[in-house]
Each structure stands twice: as C-alpha cells, then as structure tokens.
C-alpha cells in the first residue's frame, strides 16, 4: 500500500516540478526557505488533493448505492430492455450485487491506499496546505500570513517608492536648474545687459541667434563670450547643486553646497603684465596661498596697509607685491563692492578672484572669478559682482608695472623658469635612468634564460650519453 502511494507520488513529482516554474510570482522568502521541504509539502498537497477529489467523486456512489434515486434510473434503464413484469425484486438484487461487487472492485483497484491512509492525514494537512497556497498568490486570508507577506514586500515597496520619487525629482530638479541658469542668462547676457555691452559675440554657437548656454550634464551650464579688447574670450561655468539627483540632494542636507559660477577670462598675451594677485575670504585665502601653485610660488599674503582704505575685514589679499595689490584694489572697487559697507550689502556671494600670468595649463594669462549664485528671482544681487569682470579686464589690460617692481617680478619669473627647466631636466634624466635600468634588467633576464637553456642542454647531453651507455646492454639482452 505504502509502496503504491510512493509510486504515485513519484509519478506526480515531474508533473509538479514544472508548476512552480510556470506559476512564477512567489517572491516571499518563506517560500524560498521552505523550498526543499516544500517539495514534500507540495507533493503531499497534490496527492492529497487529488485523492480528495477521487474521494469526493467516488464517495457519492457509495451513498448513491444506498440511496434510492440514482439506482432508479439505472434499474429502469436496465429493466426497460429486460422483461418487465417478471422480476421486480430480482433485477434490483442482481443489480445491487454487481454494484457492490463493482465497489469492491473499485476499492481494490484505486481505493487501496485511500480509505486507510488518506483519511487520517486529511484533516490537518488540508487545512495547512490550503491556507498557504491561498495566501501566497493572493496575499489575503490569515493575519499572520499577511504580516509575513507584508514584511517580505517591504523592500520592494520602499525601493519602488524611492525610484518613483527619484524620477519625479529628476524632472523637477532639472527644470529648477534650468530655470536658474536661464534667469542668470536673461539677467546678464541678453540685449542691453552687461555682457552684451562688453562682448561682441555671445553664446556657444555660431551666428546671430546661437544658444547662450551650453548644458553639460544636468547641473553644469556654460556661457561663452568673445570679441573684446584685451582678452580673447570669457567662459562662465555655472555649477549648480545636483537638484536633479535625489541621492546627492539628500547628501547635501548633511554637507551643504552652493550654486557657483566661475568666470575664466583668457587675456591676450601682450595685454597682461606680470601680475599675480588673488583675493578671497580669509580662510579660503590661506588655503589658496598654500595650494594654488602660482600663488604659492610667487605671492604671499598682503597685510592691510595703514593709512588707506582697504578691503573689508573678512577678505584677505594675496599678491606678488604690495604695489600690485594697491594698484588693483582701486577706490572705485572699494566703494562698489569690497569696502566695508559695500561688501556687507553686495559681497555676500563673492567667493574668490585670482589673476595670474603664470597660470598652470595651456593658457597662462588668466583672470578667474568665482561667485555664488543667488536665487533665480534675486539675480540682480550679483550685478555688481558680475560688473567686476569687465572692469578688471580693462584695469589689467591697461596696467603696467613700475620698472622697479617689474625687475623684481622678472627675476622671480626667471628663477621660476630655471627651476622648472631644472625640474624638467631632472625628470628627463630620471626617465632615462629608468629606461637604462629596465634595459639592464631585460639583458640580465635574457642572460639568465640563456644560462638556463645552457644548463638544460648540458643535462640533455648527459642524459643522452647515459642512454648511450645503457643502450648496448639493452641490445644485448634483446639479442638473447
């Protein structure tokens, strides 16, 4: 009996196996965990269920045989062809007998296992298996089951929600950044604005109505202008907050950052004298002096000169000489932006500026300005700061050092150039030495290989000699 049951279950197994493949959506960890056991469970389940069906189908006949109504048609149908009057009781008894025999027959054939084995496990197993089967795909019935499924879907819900939020934020943040950049361009680069009055070519494209801004990524915008005296061009780069990126937005809650705009002015070679000058907030200035190469080499912090109006308290000036600093910080600038009073009002977006004729990189003579960007609707706040750009282009374009200062700076530059040359030569020499060492190494390796080859050859020779020695004997033995 048990054997048959096992065979049945084995036969069912391949039928059941593919079923999970087809019924895919079973995400829960619980099913995953119970998978190995689940095999048995599912088998039992299926086996149970099917016999159950058999039972359900077949049990009625059992009752039917006892009960009257169904046998009646049978008997009638059977009795109709039979001679009607003679045997009313007989056919019934006859029929009943076959029926009972058939039931016995049935019992032996298929019910073998069923009446004995199935009924006991039935009640508990049915309840057990039925509920998870229902709860898994539908995720409804029992509170415990729902709790489990909820927990297992938590990750999906959270991640899905975050993804949706990310996508929404991407579009809103992108729009916000674009609006900010456009607000800046509308304020400073349209007709009648500062840049339009100072540069003959605006925008990154060619032709009259070229786009003003070049978008690089979602948070970097570039603005280009050219065609002005003393300089070849100006490139403004707006680096905005990553508003389009929810993750960096969240990160920026912890580490705040600002919208910044930096101007690079490429000066004409002949238009800029030997000037190294920078100005920034006190802390930043110290950092710049240490880190920026040309400032580190040529310039130092300049103390506030006595008996003269000077920049606001928060600012400090780095310059090659006092003379340069004094000449570049003019009365007008102090009055407009950098003086004590004006700076409080207009300078809050100022970050730094840095002029140098020794800029590292392809273009040496450059003016760099760095400002913070105000909100889109407060763009006018930085008008004075932006106006510094053309002002300093003109100022530096016209500026000539006095002969005394010039000789000093000349000496410094010659010295620097010599150092650079020396460094270059050192580097070259080092490279040469490295090459030599490498070649030497290669040669040695090759030699070692050669020697190894030689050793191998010798060994091989020895072996052959020994073989030769051994050979005759072999022959001798074979000869016998």
């Amino acid at each position, binding site marked *: 009996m048990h054997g048959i049951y096992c065979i049945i279950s084995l036969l069912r197994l391949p039928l059941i196996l593919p079923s999970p493949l087809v019924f895919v959506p079973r995400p829960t960890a619980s099913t995953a965990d119970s998978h190995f056991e689940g095999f048995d469970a599912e088998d039992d389940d299926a086996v149970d269920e099917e016999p159950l069906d058999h039972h359900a189908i077949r049990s009625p006949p059992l009752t039917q045989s006892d009960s009257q109504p169904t046998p009646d048609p049978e008997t009638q149908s059977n009795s109709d062809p039979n001679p009607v009057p003679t045997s009313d009781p007989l056919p019934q008894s006859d029929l009943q007998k076959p029926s009972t025999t058939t039931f016995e027959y049935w019992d032996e054939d298929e019910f073998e296992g069923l009446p004995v084995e199935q009924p006991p496990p039935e009640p508990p197993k049915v309840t057990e298996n039925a509920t998870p089967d229902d709860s898994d795909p539908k995720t409804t019935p029992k509170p415990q089951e729902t709790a489990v499924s909820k927990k297992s879907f938590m*990750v999906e819900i959270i991640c899905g929600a975050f993804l949706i939020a*990310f996508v929404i934020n991407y579009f809103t943040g992108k729009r916000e950044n674009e609006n900010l950049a456009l607000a800046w361009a509308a304020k400073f680069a349209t007709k009648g604005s500062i840049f339009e009055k100072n540069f003959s*070519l605006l925008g990154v494209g060619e032709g009259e109505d070229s786009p003003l801004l*070049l978008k690089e990524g979602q948070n970097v915008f570039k603005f280009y202008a050219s*065609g*002005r005296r003393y300089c070849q061009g100006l490139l403004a780069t707006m680096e905005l907050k990553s508003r389009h990126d929810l993750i960096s937005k969240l990160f920026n809650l912890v580490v705040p950052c600002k919208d910044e705009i930096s101007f690079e002015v490429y000066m004409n070679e002949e238009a800029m004298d030997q000037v190294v000058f920078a100005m920034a907030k006190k802390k930043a200035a110290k950092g710049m002096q240490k880190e920026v190469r040309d400032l580190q080499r040529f310039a130092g912090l300049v103390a506030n000169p006595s008996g003269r109006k000077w920049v606001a308290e928060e600012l400090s000036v780095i310059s090659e000489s006092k003379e340069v600093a004094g000449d570049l910080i003019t009365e007008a600038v102090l009055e407009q932006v950098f003086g004590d009073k004006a700076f409080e009002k207009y300078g809050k977006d100022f970050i730094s500026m840095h002029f140098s004729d020794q800029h590292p990189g392809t273009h040496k003579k450059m003016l760099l300005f760095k400002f913070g960007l105000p909100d889109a609707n407060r763009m006018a706040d930085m008008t004075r700061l932006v106006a510094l750009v053309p002002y300093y282009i003109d100022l530096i374009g016209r500026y000539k050092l006095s002969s005394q200062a010039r000789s000093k700076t000349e000496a410094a530059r010659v010295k620097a150039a010599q150092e650079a040359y020396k460094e270059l030569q050192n580097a070259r020499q080092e490279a040469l030495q490295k090459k030599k060492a490498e070649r030497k190494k290669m040669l040695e390796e090759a030699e070692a290989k050669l020697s190894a080859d030689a050793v191998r050859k010798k060994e091989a020779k020895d072996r052959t000699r020994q073989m030769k020695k051994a050979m005759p004997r072999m022959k001798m033995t074979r000869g016998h």
Partner: protein
Amino acid sequence: MSSHNNNSASVNDPRQPSAAKPFVAQPVSPQDLPVDYSGFIAVVFGIAGVMFRYKLSSWLAIIFCAQSLANMRNVENDLKQISMAMMFAIMGLVTNYLGPARPGTQS
C-alpha cells in the same frame, strides 16, 4: 552698469567684433571626467545581488543605476558601464523573483 562708473572707459566701445573667436569646446579626456561613483556602486551592488541572491542589493543597484543615468554626461562613454550595472541588477532581480529556478541556476 551706469550706476557704477566701473567702465568709465565706456567712452569708446570695448567690443571688438574682429577679435571674436567662436567657442571651441575643449576636448576633455576621459581620465579628467569626474569618477562615476554611482555607476561603480551600482555594479558592486548588482554583482553582490546576483552572487548572494540578496534582493535589497539588486534594488539598490537599480537605484544607483538611476542616479548614474541622471548624472550621465557623455552618452557613449557612460552608457556602457551603466548598461552593465543595469544588467547585473536586473539579472539579480530575475533570479531572485523567479526564485524556484534556483537549483538549476546555482550549478
């Protein structure tokens, strides 16, 4: 502008149309581009998700893929890495949710 006489030299127009040079985008070598951390993290999470069948990891990989996609600057260059990360992430999710196929795939 007129409010401050910064351009007191606006006696004459500072503009010089003849000196105008059109904008030339500076070619940026791939090495100079900022490192795509999110793409890298996405790949790491994606691989971890596939290896350990840890679905949270795969989901995180997808989220970082989205971030990397949002921060993409150079389409051809970055798309490769992102698509790789995306593949890993989706593969992880597929193996996770079509879970019962595991014994076959695990070999």
